[in-house]
Each structure stands twice: as structure tokens, then as C-alpha cells.
């Protein structure tokens, strides 16, 4: 088993920044990622990529070039982390590989959040991130005539990427009202590069003649074996469908996203404390130096609260700096530079909070989710079964629903349905989702699929 001072899990913006910072501070560092190439979701690319179609590519190239002294382990999906009180504290299992670490930086990012609605499991309906990942990582448009829907600024890069790559984008349907940013002037002005960025997207949308609709949602997807069209409807300020406002849009692709779900299972399994973020996500609770509640475990990027790549870069640096200092290394920066990082962190967090306030998950899906609508795609559990379990079996929390209905017990282990199942359960119980509801779907004994041979060979006694 190879030992390192710092092992970083995830090679996205947060993990790369962390790995480079820890190495600069003199630590022996390894960074593990389940993918074949570094970059995470933001810099997902083909192996001959020249940065076209990517934002901040120069930052990525700089980080990649500085990975020299870092052991980079790709195609390494971490499925278990053992911990013990002595040193090295952690054993990180990826496939049949095991590496030991004195400190961990968890930078595992997030995946798309979607909510169920009639037809959401038809082929042709994909997450917004999938649409983006297929173009950026694979050079493929997933459909010819596409609708982009959900909420959040991420819909804009998705629509423009698809349009640039040759799809016809029939429309972007944003469930909320971006004019509400006007109520958050300070955070928006505090992140000065965000306004020109929004302007650049608006210009690209105009150039591709992509219609943009605010306070409108795709409330149903249609087709027998594949998507043939969607129903769109206007939403009132509270996020409910305006009766009679429905109309049909023909398309063979729907990219849908309502924000992101941080991938916190490795940290949850280690016992790291969690909290509910403003967007309703279960995230890791961290102090100002990005330390989690478990000694030796730091977290950076979307796992501490969804806030975009720029914030992830700052957090990666802060987390790794703190980890290095805790090992007795000199801080990799001057007091001035640390001050700058902390201020940037504060500013970008405040901007993220404004973003979450403007783009909440709208309420319509809870009304539109009829008894036949699948909540759990893997175990094919419809909403009616969840509702019946709560009415007839007196189940009142997400854990109970999981055990009695098999929601979240299939292949994806609740990654896709966990958020919605927790919300539906809480809604039926007449309350708001709690940390416990969401933790019920984020606790997974094994964070990634593992072969029985690797499992049998592994020493998990730590």
C-alpha cells in the first residue's frame, strides 16, 4: 500500500486546486478520480481537446501542468474509505487499489438534480449535465430538436453548447424569474465577472435564435418508446402551474436540471457532519478552513454547497492549505494571498446564496406528480405507492418509505430519486424535508459499484 500525506478524491476544479496547493506546500500528494482524465464536470474534455467550447481552459492547463509532483490515479472510483485513530489515518479503496493517507480532501462534486414528472423516464429525456457531458466529453448531440428546462444559470451553457454543436434548441424554459436578481444587487455586484458572463450567454442565445421563457416549466414528456414532445406551462410566482396555460412543443430531446445534488456519500460514511444548504441539498458542514467534523478530513467544491467552478477552485486551495499546515508544513501562501482567498470565498458564497434564492426548485412537480408517475426509476416505484405507504402503513419519514417501498434501493441507490423522495415524503407528512430525510438516501455502505473479487480481497477492518 502506498502512503501519502494528502489524498484528494476527485479531480475537478476543487480537487485539482487542492492537489496542486498541497504539493506546493511540500506534501506528498495523490489525486484519485473515477474518470480517465482530470477536469471533473467543468473541464470534461476529449483527449485531443484544445479548449474550444470550454471556459477558463487556461486555468485548467495551468493546473494540469502543475500536477508534476502529484501522483495522478485515474479510472479509480473510490468505493470505501477506512479510518483509524493512528497514522496514516485513512485507507482509500478504489477497485483493487488501496492508498493510505494522513489527510483527505473530499472533492467529489455533484450530479444533476431532477424531479419526477409524467414521462421523465422516456428515452430522449436526459439531465442537463448529461447533455453537456455528451457534447464536451464525447462530441455527440443527444438529440436533434431539443428543449432545455428546469432552473438555474446552468441551463444557459447547456443550451448554447447544444446549439453550437448543431442541435436546434426549441426553447429554454426557466421555472423562476431571473429579474429577481434585482433583489440581490450586492452579491451580484460582488461577483463582477458574472454579469458579462450572463451577457455572453444572452448574445449566443440570440445568435442561435434560441427562445428564452421565464417562469415556465416542462410539466410532462410525451412519447411511447421515445420522446416526441413536451407540455410546457406558465408558473405563478409561487411555482405552481397557472391553470389553462399548457401548450405542446414538439422535440426529440429534453435536457432537464433543477440544480445539483452533492456527492457526499464517502464523507457521510466517514461520519462527517452535514447540513441543509439554501437549495435544499445535503452538504458537508465545514469550518472556515474547510475542515469537516472528522479530524483530518477536508472538503472542497460542490460537496460543501453548490456554487460553481470558481468557488470550487478557491475552496480547493483553502482546504489543501489547511491540510498542509495541520501536517506541520509552512502555509503555501503569504498572509495577503490567504486574505484574498478568504475574501473571494466569502464573495462567491454570497453569490451562490443569491443564486439559490432566485432559483429554488419550483413547487409544481409535487402537484403534477400523479400516482402513476415514477419516483424511483430503478425499482419503478410510482408516487402512489409512496403515498399509500404513508397513509396505510403509517410511515412518516424518508427512511421508512425507503424500507417499505424500495424507493432508492435499486441500482442508483437513491442518487437520482433521493431528493424527490425526501421532498414527497415530507410534503405528504405536511412538513419540510429534514437532514435525516436526505441522509436516508445519502448513506451508502459502498460509494461505488465494486466487484465481489475486490470486495473479498479488501481488508476493511480499519
Amino acid at each position, binding site marked *: 500500500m502506498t502512503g501519502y500525506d494528502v489524498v484528494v478524491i476527485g479531480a475537478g476544479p476543487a480537487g485539482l486546486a487542492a492537489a496542486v496547493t498541497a504539493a506546493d506546500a511540500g506534501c506528498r500528494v495523490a489525486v484519485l478520480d*473515477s474518470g480517465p482524465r482530470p477536469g471533473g*464536470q467543468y473541464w470534461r474534455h*476529449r*483527449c485531443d481537446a484544445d479548449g474550444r467550447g470550454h471556459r477558463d481552459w487556461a486555468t485548467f492547463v495551468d493546473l494540469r501542468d502543475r500536477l508534476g509532483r502529484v501522483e495522478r490515479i485515474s479510472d479509480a472510483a473510490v468505493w470505501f474509505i477506512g479510518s483509524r485513530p493512528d497514522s496514516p489515518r485513512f485507507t482509500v479503496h478504489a477497485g483493487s487499489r488501496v492508498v493510505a493517507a494522513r489527510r483527505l480532501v473530499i472533492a467529489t462534486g455533484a*450530479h*444533476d438534480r431532477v424531479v419526477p414528472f409524467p414521462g421523465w*423516464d*422516456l*428515452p*430522449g*429525456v*436526459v*439531465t442537463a*449535465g*448529461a*447533455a453537456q*457531458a*455528451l457534447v464536451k*466529453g*464525447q*462530441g*455527440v448531440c*443527444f*438529440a436533434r430538436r431539443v428543449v432545455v428546462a428546469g432552473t438555474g444559470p446552468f441551463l444557459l451553457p447547456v443550451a448554447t453548447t447544444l446549439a453550437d454543436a448543431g442541435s436546434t434548441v426549441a426553447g429554454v424554459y426557466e421555472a423562476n424569474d431571473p429579474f429577481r436578481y434585482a433583489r440581490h444587487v450586492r452579491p451580484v455586484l460582488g461577483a463582477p465577472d458574472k454579469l458579462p458572463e450572463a451577457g455572453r450567454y444572452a448574445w449566443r442565445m440570440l445568435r442561435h435564435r434560441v427562445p428564452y421563457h421565464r417562469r415556465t416549466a416542462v410539466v410532462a414528456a410525451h412519447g411511447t*418508446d*421515445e420522446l416526441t414532445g413536451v407540455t410546457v406551462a406558465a408558473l405563478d410566482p409561487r411555482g405552481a402551474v397557472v391553470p389553462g396555460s399548457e401548450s405542446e412543443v414538439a422535440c426529440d430531446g429534453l435536457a432537464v436540471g433543477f440544480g445539483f445534488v452533492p456527492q457526499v456519500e464517502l464523507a457521510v460514511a466517514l461520519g462527517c457532519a452535514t447540513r441543509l444548504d439554501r437549495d435544499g441539498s445535503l452538504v458537508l458542514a465545514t469550518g472556515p478552513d474547510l475542515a469537516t467534523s472528522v479530524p483530518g478530513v477536508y472538503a472542497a467544491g460542490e460537496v460543501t454547497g453548490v456554487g460553481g467552478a470558481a468557488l470550487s477552485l478557491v475552496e480547493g486551495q483553502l482546504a489543501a492549505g489547511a491540510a498542509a499546515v495541520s501536517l506541520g508544513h509552512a502555509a503555501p501562501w503569504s498572509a495577503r494571498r490567504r486574505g484574498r482567498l478568504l475574501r473571494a470565498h466569502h464573495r462567491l458564497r454570497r453569490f451562490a446564496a443569491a443564486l439559490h434564492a432566485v432559483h429554488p426548485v419550483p413547487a409544481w412537480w409535487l402537484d403534477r406528480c400523479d400516482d402513476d408517475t415514477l419516483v424511483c*426509476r*430503478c*425499482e*419503478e416505484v410510482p408516487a402512489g405507492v409512496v403515498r399509500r405507504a404513508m397513509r396505510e402503513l403509517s410511515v412518516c419519514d424518508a427512511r421508512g418509505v425507503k424500507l417499505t417501498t424500495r424507493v432508492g434501493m*435499486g*441500482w*442508483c441507490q437513491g*442518487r*437520482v430519486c433521493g431528493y424527490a423522495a425526501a421532498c414527497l415524503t415530507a410534503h405528504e407528512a405536511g412538513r419540510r424535508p429534514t437532514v435525516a430525510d436526505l441522509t436516508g438516501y445519502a448513506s451508502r455502505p459502498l460509494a461505488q459499484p465494486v466487484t465481489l473479487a475486490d470486495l473479498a480481497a479488501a481488508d476493511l477492518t480499519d
Partner: protein
Amino acid sequence: MMFTFDGRPVPSDGQQTIAAALLAGGIRSWRRTRLGGRPRGVFCGIGVCFDCLVRVNGVPAQRACLVPARPGDVVESHDEPQVRA
């Protein structure tokens, strides 16, 4: 560069995953679910949802969105025995 999906040849550019090559070849669903027999293809695109499962060279339950398409691979749909029509 070709692999086969349920016996029919599908081209790939040598870098693509099986899912990307199938999509590029106009194949958008390649599996039926166990209970409802519902068609499925790509959903999350990053290995999280397990909707895109295929059998690759006899090995079941491979995520098509993660596994690269190699020349000569034998890819089959991952239909499971239907337990409820």
C-alpha cells in the same frame, strides 16, 4: 472502428463510450426495465443513474456511458426477464 450492438454493427470514433457511439448511430434506447418493460437509454451521462446498462462481451450490468467502445466488442441489451408485464 466497429462494435456490434445486438448483432448489428455500430461505428465509433475510437474515443467514445458505448452510449455516445449508440446515440451517434441513432440508437436512443437499448434496454427494457425489469418490472414495466420500459425502454431506457442515457439519462445522467456520468455513471450515476444506471439507466444505460448493457452487457459487454458477456459481462452484465456495465454502464454504457462510462465504458469505452472498443473495436470488436460484443454489446447486448441488458433486458432482464420480465417479472411483471
